[in-house]
């Protein structure tokens, strides 16, 4: 049997099939949660926002415009929830994510991963260090650039879809994407340099 499309599942759910929406949740929860967690930072809040996004989608399912894609619509809902959450809680522009090495209230501390014994000794940066650097760099981006980078790089959406989610022209998405990558190139360069500087001198 052919796998039903998202939009078919939406139709079934609107018609009263409870399993259809559950199938949609199962299909999209991982991607959506990853997006929210990368965007918001805090795992517990991300989980709440993710659930809220699905609840909101569920309650408004009958309003879904079938010319659109369900995923795009879901991301739009999630993004709006994240925005209002930022406003409500007056969160800082950057966060530490509790999923990795650092659980403190300050920003990600790359130096803490530097002493990781699993890190290779070739003089280059280890996997966890590199991840921490990328995380810190992305999180320090201005919000408007960060969301575009996340949607493109980590969710793999097309520029057209991102434009639809953000409600802006494709050219604006691309200009933000370029600016984001350009800024990241500097931030990553700086982050790697700093990680090497902070690395304890193991070798003589």
């Amino acid at each position: 049997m052919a796998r039903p499309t998202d939009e078919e599942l939406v139709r079934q759910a609107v018609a009263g099939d409870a399993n259809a929406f559950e199938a949609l949740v199962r299909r999209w929860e991982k991607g959506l949660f990853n997006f929210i967690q990368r965007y918001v930072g805090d795992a517990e809040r991300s989980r709440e926002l993710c659930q809220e996004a699905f609840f909101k989608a569920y309650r408004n399912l009958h309003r879904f415009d079938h010319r659109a894609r369900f995923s795009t619509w879901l991301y739009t809902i999630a993004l709006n929830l994240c925005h209002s959450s930022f406003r409500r809680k007056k969160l800082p522009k950057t966060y530490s994510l509790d999923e990795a090495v650092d659980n403190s209230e300050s920003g990600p501390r790359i130096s803490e991963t530097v002493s990781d014994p699993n890190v290779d000794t070739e003089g280059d940066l280890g996997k966890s260090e590199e991840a921490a650097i990328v995380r810190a760099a992305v999180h320090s981006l201005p919000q408007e650039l960060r969301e575009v980078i996340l949607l493109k790089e980590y969710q793999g959406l097309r520029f057209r879809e991102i434009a639809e989610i953000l409600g802006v022209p494709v050219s604006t998405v691309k200009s933000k994407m370029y600016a984001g990558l350009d800024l990241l190139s500097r931030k990553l360069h700086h982050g790697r340099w700093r990680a090497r500087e902070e690395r304890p001198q193991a070798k003589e």
Partner: protein
Amino acid sequence: MSACTNYRELLLDVLYGEVSEPDHAAFEAHCAGCDSCRDDFERLRAVSQGLAAWEPVEAPILARTWPLRRRSFRELLRSPRLAWSAAAAALLLGVLLRADLRVQNGVVRVSLAMPGATATPSSLEPEQVAAVIQAAINQSEDRQRRELALVLAGMVEQIESDVAQQLYTVHSDLDRLENTTYRVVNASQWSLKP
């Protein structure tokens, strides 16, 4: 680089494979004669590849709990942080109330509530009563001192955390300044299309 801003959109299309064959060829042709665009492409491609180091995190497995959670939607509105705050406030209140009681005991010099003063007062010599009372006061003062020390330690901790927060804010502000500077500089090179 600024002369090639028209190629930036195309560069991104090529980078993410959202390009038609003729456009791809046009970009290749341009890059063959333009070091700046070629370098730009390689630089951004390296950034894009580098971002993969930040791997996906664990998924929440909502689907399994979905039908249950649907019934307890109100739970979502209850923040766990709020519960923790309430618990902490209750604990703090308890500590403060107990502290007050002890101070009261010390001042009034009623030693009945104090351990070590269970004997009936009449069976004790005045000196012994005085000693018991003195012990109770001392005990009370000790407690007060210990509690004061705890309060002070808490204050120090708070101050340290405030300082850390302020340093962090300064750090964030510097970051924001960097971003703003970048945007100002960038705006002059790259005009946003409406």
